[in-house]
């Protein structure tokens, strides 16, 4: 079957989708967006977290056909999404912004790479605040859980600009990390929140 939906602010079409396929598979294998990770395929690990109409969900548990006509934001579009949000307010998607956002094209999304602001040269700058904070706080080790954590953490910061540690733990309780012991991840989210509140 064919599925039409919006990915990172741009309309996309996936063809030859199998009826039992997950949104995760469709993103990775049909649209070429491997940022969302495939780990447990049972909603236990959160590595495949994306936003579906603004809500963080495990994309491995959403049937492809269920996203027809809906909006998905993946980690590849997170930087642009966060930028739109800070410029226009609200949540950064069409569903709550009257002006249509520029979004991230499929090509841009496929070519996306983590280029943060280098502390030495000051180059780069294509990251969302939460992505930059993960780099600065050393919250990335093997990196497999990182995309899901970024999407979940970014959404939490949208709802709670000044989160308590309990808010952070609660929001990230569905994302497993086997490397860091979570402390650096907590640091990163606190850092992103602190930088966000400085800006306002």
């Amino acid at each position: 079957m064919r599925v039409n939906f919006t990915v990172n602010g741009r309309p996309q079409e996936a063809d030859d989708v199998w009826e039992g396929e997950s949104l995760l598979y469709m993103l990775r294998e049909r649209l070429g967006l491997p940022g969302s990770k495939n780990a447990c395929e049972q909603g236990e690990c959160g590595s495949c977290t994306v936003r579906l109409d603004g809500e963080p969900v495990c994309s491995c548990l959403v049937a492809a056909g269920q996203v027809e006509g809906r909006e998905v934001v993946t980690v590849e579009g997170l930087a642009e999404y966060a930028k739109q949000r800070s410029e226009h307010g609200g949540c950064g998607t069409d569903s709550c912004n009257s002006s249509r956002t520029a979004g991230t094209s499929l090509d841009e999304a496929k070519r996306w790479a983590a280029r943060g602001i280098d502390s030495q040269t000051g180059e780069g700058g294509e990251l969302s605040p939460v992505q930059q904070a993960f780099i600065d706080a050393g919250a990335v080790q093997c990196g497999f859980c990182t995309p899901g954590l970024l999407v979940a953490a970014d959404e939490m910061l949208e709802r709670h600009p000044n989160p308590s540690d309990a808010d952070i733990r609660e929001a990230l309780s569905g994302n497993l990390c086997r490397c860091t012991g979570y402390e650096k991840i907590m640091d990163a989210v606190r850092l992103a929140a602190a930088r966000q509140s400085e800006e306002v």
Partner: protein
Amino acid sequence: MDFLRPASWEEALAAKAEHPTAVPIAGGTDVMVEINFDHRRPEYLLDLNRVGELSEWEVGEETVRLGASVPYTRIMENLRPELPGLALASHTVASPQIRNRGGVGGNLGTASPAGDAHPALLAAGAQVEAESVRGSRLIPIDDFYTGVKRNALAPDELIRAVHIDKADGPQQYSKVGTRNAMVIAVCAFGLALHPGTRTVRTGIGSAAPTPVRAKAAEEFLNAALDEGGFWDNGRIITPSVAKQFADLCAGACNPIDDVRGTASYRRHAVGVMARRTLMWTWESYRGTDRAARRMGGAA
């Protein structure tokens, strides 16, 4: 496999009547796991996400009519005053991502003894609104669970909503697991005080082939509270009464040994949770002012 995408409730019922083997999918948090792992290859998937009314709820005089697909997140955020036990249970479901998708209809449809909502529904008192092209009926929650992952639905029926009695007293929910998030219950316990009828209701999860009430324990406690005038005098429940209640709750279990825990551990833990939830709810009831207690008792 065919993917059926009804745009309305009527279309969904017609599709289910035409294809009784169709597997309904809403949040997908159970169904997709089975498909991802090749444990299930249904001929038809019946997507209910486009049926908007399934995600709505109505707060009535005596009950809340909770749409089958209302996500657990919405229950926690919006229905805590009316459904405190279910709101607590909802918060123990998996993770935020899962709670954003999953709802009570899925818990009932799957009818796993480990479903987190069941003890809260049993304790509060609820009826399942099932509908088919033949008509609609309300199934009392006590008659709904018929076996391990079996329920009273006919093949052509879908769950439209759950009618849950609004809380008329304190309710509590307790769940045992190895950690706080992302846990399938080793066992769970729900308890609701109903000062209006001067009764206590319970619900036990993951400790029998189906979710069950501890009816003998309820009868014992109802009689003991009545005899001692506890509903009126608001006294602390006698430790021996609490212990007997806990023992009877443990006795209502019919658990198995499995990877999550042993049968004897489950029995023990259910007893502990029964005593604790009774103490928590009773403390809360005693905290309510005396006059209000009497009015509640007279209602």
